């Protein structure tokens, strides 16, 4: 057997368990969900022909984009510093950034709720700035959901970026500077470009987790939070309209997959 064929066989063997689990526990149920969405009165046209539901979809996608941007802007400098920190505390600092993930979403959301009420610290700060009306509160607002969700997803962005930035050879930056690039230009041309895999992976993780988030949007956004996952929950458990819930889930999957693929392609083309 030629070496290449053997390598292919080994690769297939290594992939097989994961592929099997994926097919069994993800693809098959998804297919079942899709079949269910076709039962009864038309579900897809009901969703796509209704401005209200399209608004819910738009809300979820906007939430995903906002949270991704916030975590990227806040996370990149931090991940960069942590990756470059020449201290034995770096590991501990990285560990500290993951703290939000250690607390249950429900407990964390309750803490945010206390800060977001009209008399809570966060709402008070905004009221004091004069940018918002005096009885403004962050609870029940889109901005509140973005803040609370960005907090919990920030560690995921940081850890992903950290691993990638840490793998970038610093000599490449030095070489660029040696050839006359300022540190800023070297950062832009070399480091950021090499880190784009991490940016892509981190963004996709944060985006997909945001558009499908349930606990935080439902608790912080309250009843006025019309997001996809909350709507699916309502249709499944409160109204028992399973075909419609399945259709919403399928639409969410297709839309967020296409957003992710487009984003990945854009970032990939840039690199060439």
């Amino acid at each position, binding site marked *: 057997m030629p070496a290449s064929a053997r390598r292919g066989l080994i690769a297939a063997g290594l992939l097989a368990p994961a592929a099997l689990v994926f097919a069994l526990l993800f693809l098959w149920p998804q297919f079942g969900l899709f079949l269910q969405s076709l039962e009864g009165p038309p579900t897809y046209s009901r969703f796509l022909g209704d401005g209200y539901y399209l608004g819910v979809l738009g809300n979820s996608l906007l939430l995903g984009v906002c949270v991704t941007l916030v975590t990227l802007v806040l996370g990149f400098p931090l991940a960069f510093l942590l990756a470059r920190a020449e201290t034995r505390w770096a590991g501990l600092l990285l560990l500290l950034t993951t703290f939000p993930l250690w607390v249950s979403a429900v407990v964390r959301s309750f803490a945010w*709720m206390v800060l977001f009420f009209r*008399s809570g610290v966060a709402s008070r700060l905004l009221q004091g700035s004069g940018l918002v009306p005096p009885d403004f509160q962050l609870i*029940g607002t889109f901005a509140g959901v973005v803040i609370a969700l960005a907090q919990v997803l920030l560690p995921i962005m940081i850890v992903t970026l950290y691993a990638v930035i840490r793998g970038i050879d610093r000599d490449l930056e030095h070489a660029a500077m040696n050839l006359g690039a300022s540190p800023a230009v070297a950062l832009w041309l070399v480091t950021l470009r090499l880190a784009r895999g991490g940016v892509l992976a981190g963004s996709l993780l944060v985006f997909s987790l945001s558009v499908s988030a349930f606990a935080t949007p439902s608790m912080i956004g309250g009843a006025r939070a019309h997001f996809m996952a909350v709507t699916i929950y309502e249709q499944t458990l409160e*109204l028992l309209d399973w075909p419609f819930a399945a259709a919403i889930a399928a639409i969410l999957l297709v839309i967020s997959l296409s957003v992710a693929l487009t984003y990945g392609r854009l970032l990939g083309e840039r690199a060439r």
Partner: protein
Amino acid sequence: MPRDGFMSRPLTRRHALASAGLAAATLLPGRAGAQPRFAGREIVATAFGGPSQDLIQRMVYDAVTRETGARGTQTPLLSANAFARMRAEAQAPQIDLFMFSGGQQVPAKAAGLTQKLPEAPNFANVPATLKDADGHWVAWGLVTEGILYRPDKVATPPRSYKDFFKPEFAGHIAFPHITNGYGTDFLVMLARAHGGSESNIGPGFEALKRIAGRANIFRSAAEVQTLFASGDIWIMPYDGASAMRSTAMGIPVAYSVPEEGAPFVLLTGCAARRSRNADIASAVLNRHLDPEVQTAIAREIGWAPVNTATQLPPDVAPFMAPTDRLATLDRDVINASRPAWTERFNREIAR
């Protein structure tokens, strides 16, 4: 001349049996030497789980065992699941006594799944609207809804659902989402207060729209305490037990029975048609209805008594609506309208 009085009558065998039966029926503890009434028998019942199940085991089943010899086993089952089980095991029931909180006793009786419970003394103290006319089911507890408010922030206690429109409450109102049962009941009561009804819900939505803009709409029961503790929320429609719990946690929250009446959730018991233990079921339900047990359930769990002979202590009574101030809602119409009302709520109210 012999006195023809009760005491001088010869005690016939027939009389002896009748009075023994009477003694047993009133659940008198067996006298020394007497065989307990249900010795060696066992009853299986559904329960609502959690602390209520522990309390009821202690105060109801253990007491019934002591008094009658019958052992009781509780199995936690949500009402909908219990009803499904009742239907599935209609021919050979594994469970004798079913407890429902979602009104399932009515379709259960209609489907012929229940039987007449032998009369028990405390049943007589339950208002006629809270038990079946044919004796197939009887209520033993209530969750009573109404208006919750912060007595330290609100000068005049609210008395009516119309009080939600008082200008001083603007910005300090919270109400549950329509997918929360209390949220649905609030909508119906607003409709009733404004000339509507379950089948004419329009006035309810119009009224809700007037307060929704500046109100906090919440989804879960867990948020009630957080909302009141924030200090921003002074008034909301919810159940009295939540006010009692908040007060116990140090957040002053009072409960007011609205003049339109208090919507409620009924906790009932009924025996499976083919169960051979309906007599024990009746004794168990009778014990539930004992004023002492009714008071303990009210204090520990927050379920209001249905036995009108119960005298609640002053630290519990203010959080429960009495049985003569209840508002009975048409649950069939409400359940049938739920999908349409939810759609409308999402579009018009929760914006």
